[in-house]
């Protein structure tokens, strides 16, 4: 039997995507399904598990710790995403101009992105130290309160985590914004200048709208990032003091790999998965509806 031409084309297409599809199934879809399945079981004595339906979720949503973890994650997400994006945008606009040493500035702002966050966090631990940290030294030179125990008291611990995240990610967002800025046609600005537009008007009416696809992409990326970063928490605070820096992914890690409570860890993973799924939908939906494209 000979396949029709159309079917042969389809078959070739499926064959070509097969390798990556196999990887997706093995490393993405299967674990997702398995997490959902495991989240319905509770660990019992003797290494066995018992089917408990939605009891894990019921316990989790009812527990003070989980609610606090979600709240922490919200604070962390808002606190790190907004400043990182604004800083990224500001740096991008400044460094898109013709400046002396522009390359050096761009490099130094982008540089934190290239250091593994775990290694960077180790360095920040020293900067944040109460007795010999650089941060307190600088504060005391400025005549400000300089006896802050950054990583061990609230709300400074969360502030420290946020600070490291902003430092880490702003440079990356700058890079994305820079590429967005450079795709804007110079002639639009020239026309605006001829019409007598000032700098603010140019920014407000040309740069921002034409940058909106980039901004949208960066924002979504940043939010998703903020749910996936756990290294600085693990290295710098271990979720403390009193769980005030415990975020969702760290909670999953603790339950899964310190307590070996697969049921709770899987339930929390399903929650994380759902959150990220919502943002992914917003992304694809938004791409089609909200974003202004120059056509």
């Amino acid at each position, binding site marked *: 039997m000979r396949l029709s031409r159309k079917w042969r084309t389809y078959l070739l297409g499926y064959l070509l995507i097969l390798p990556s599809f196999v990887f997706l199934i093995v490393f993405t879809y299967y674990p997702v399904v398995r997490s959902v399945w495991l989240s319905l079981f*509770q*660990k*019992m*004595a*003797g*290494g066995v598990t018992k089917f408990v339906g939605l009891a894990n979720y019921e*316990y989790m949503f009812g527990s*003070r710790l989980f609610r606090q973890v979600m709240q922490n994650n919200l604070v962390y997400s808002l606190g790190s995403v907004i400043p990182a994006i604004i800083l990224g945008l500001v740096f991008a606009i400044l460094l898109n101009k013709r400046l002396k040493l522009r390359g050096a500035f761009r490099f130094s702002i982008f540089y934190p992105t290239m250091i593994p966050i775990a290694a960077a966090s180790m360095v920040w631990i020293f900067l944040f130290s*109460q*007795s*010999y940290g650089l941060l307190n030294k600088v504060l005391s030179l400025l005549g400000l309160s300089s*006896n802050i*125990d950054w990583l*061990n*008291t*609230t709300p400074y611990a969360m502030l420290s985590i946020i600070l490291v995240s902003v430092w880490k990610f702003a440079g990356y967002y700058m890079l994305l914004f820079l590429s967005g800025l450079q795709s804007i046609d110079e002639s639009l600005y020239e026309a605006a200048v001829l019409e007598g537009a000032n700098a603010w008007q140019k920014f407000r009416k040309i740069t921002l709208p034409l940058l909106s696809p980039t901004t949208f992409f960066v924002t979504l990326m940043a939010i998703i990032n903020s749910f996936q970063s756990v290294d600085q928490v693990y290295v710098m605070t271990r979720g*403390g*003091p*009193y*769980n005030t820096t415990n975020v969702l992914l760290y909670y999953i890690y*603790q339950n899964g*790999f*310190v*307590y*070996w*409570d697969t049921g709770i860890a899987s339930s929390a993973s399903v929650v994380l998965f759902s959150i990220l799924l919502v943002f992914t939908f917003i992304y694809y939906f938004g791409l089609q509806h909200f974003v202004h494209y120059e056509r």
Partner: protein
Amino acid sequence: MRKFFVIALVVFAVFATSLIAADPVILRFYFPVGVAGPLARYMGELADKFNSTHPDIIVEPIYSGGYPETLQRALTASKAGNPPDVALLTAADIWTAADEKIIISLESFIEAEGGETFLEPYFQAFLEDCDVAGELYAIPFQKSTPIFYYNKDMFREAGLDPDRPPSTWTELKEYATKLAKKEGGNTVRWGVEIPIDQWLLSAFIMQNGGLVNNQAGTETYLNSPEAIGALEFMRSLVAEGLMPARRLFGDSSADFVAGTTAMMYNSTGSLTFVRDSATFDWGVAYLPENVRRAVPTGGGQLVIMAGIPAERQKAAWEFIKWMTLPEQAATWSMKTGYVAVREDAFDVPEMKAYVEGFPFAIVAREQLQFVLVGEPPATHAARQISRFMTDALEGAIAGMISAKDALNTAQAEAERVLRPYR
């Protein structure tokens, strides 16, 4: 031509010997490094020594991070059907490993070696951490206790007798008040630092006359009046500005050698670090007592993994036994600062000389007489119980929740996770 002949002969000789000699058993040994120092290198040296004296066994020590990571690796490797042969686990994780059935009971091996007579030389205090509900699953290897460190120079400066460290809670607070330095409402030098850890909370609970858990490991007493009293005392040290709210073990020893705190609770494992880094006169002592003198143990013990062939389990037992012989116990203790796990290790000549030159090394051993129950919490799901205790400690001493509420929460959480084991 002659060269060819020689080469052929050598090749043949190598082949022949490898055919005659039985295949050596290869043991993979997961070990963590829990204190400062080049312990991984020392472990390699120890394994080399074992390998050279046991031609039929080859031990490959594999560094596996800290204690939690070692259990993680052993557990995931076991679940994937590729377990290591020997591992070095902390007391809490032995319960988990036994519950997950990834380690084997050592009772039959011990029986074959003569039972009680074989165990006799080991310190009873350390054997407490090797059983799960009465059955031995491990042999002690690198053991510690918390001890009390103090800066003698600061004692003199504050008009305190440098040879009389605080021996009770009351004295501890009194001394801390004299030793703490405040400038404009801020403490610039702490009186004492007690690292945030369930290990030290356990010590205070026991010193206050309480216990953390029952013998079967199915019940905790976290909200007993003794426990609440202990936590309230720790909280008062912070509330009165004598102690910082949150320090981990490493932070405390760094603060101590930097002169930021006058006294600290820390592991015996930090002795070597403090000895090498402190630029002042210092001393160590037993932990201060309250209702009674009590101290927990800590550190790691050796286990044999399940799911490996019997001959490898037998070789693993040979290795474990050898690792804790007096000579090795003494070597490990001298190099790392851990307490040697058996009485007769202190008769090894090198050890005798070492203890004479560094008498602090003996304080931990002598403190062993005050060990009540090994390292609490000795329960099922011990890591979780530990976390509930640490949470309570953190919350209470940061003043975010009262000691009573914090411990009530911890107890309720502990009851929830222990319910399946009742």
